[in-house]
């Protein structure tokens, strides 16, 4: 799927304001990402 490489290069902030590169989530283990509409 073509978009996973683009996503993997993206970095987001977590709740503690630390950077998380998405590709790191599936570098060695499978990853489940869920996009939600809003908080709460």
């Amino acid at each position, binding site marked *: 799927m073509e*978009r996973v490489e683009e996503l993997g290069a993206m970095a987001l902030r977590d709740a503690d304001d630390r950077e998380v590169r998405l*590709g790191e989530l*599936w570098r060695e283990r499978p990853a*489940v990402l*869920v*996009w939600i509409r809003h908080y*709460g």
Partner: protein
Amino acid sequence: MRDRYQELTAKGANLAVIAAGFPAMAKDFQQEYRLPFPVLVDTPRATYAALGLKRASRLGVTWTSLRELALLRGVLKLARHGVGAPKAQQSLLQLGGALVVAPGGAVKLVHRATETRDNVPVDALLEALR
């Protein structure tokens, strides 16, 4: 997903939830729902766009939001965290989705919601992790 977190991690998976907003909102959300996995912030919703996630119709979202009192909860959160900043970051029209990726980057599941209550079943996530 929280209630079946252990089933998902038993498959060796890293889990994360993504929403628009800012880290303080993510922290509040994580603590309120006692989420044992990372809650990530995508302020410009760039990952939503990259995955091709859709936007709902205004009418459908308005009806659903009123029904679920999401608007009221959102207003309360805005009042708590300050008015103004989230306006350009969150969109009630934005729909969600899910992605399961195998180690190395092979995509096992993509779910793009078609309406506000279209949530991917946890069983589908578990199946994709087989």
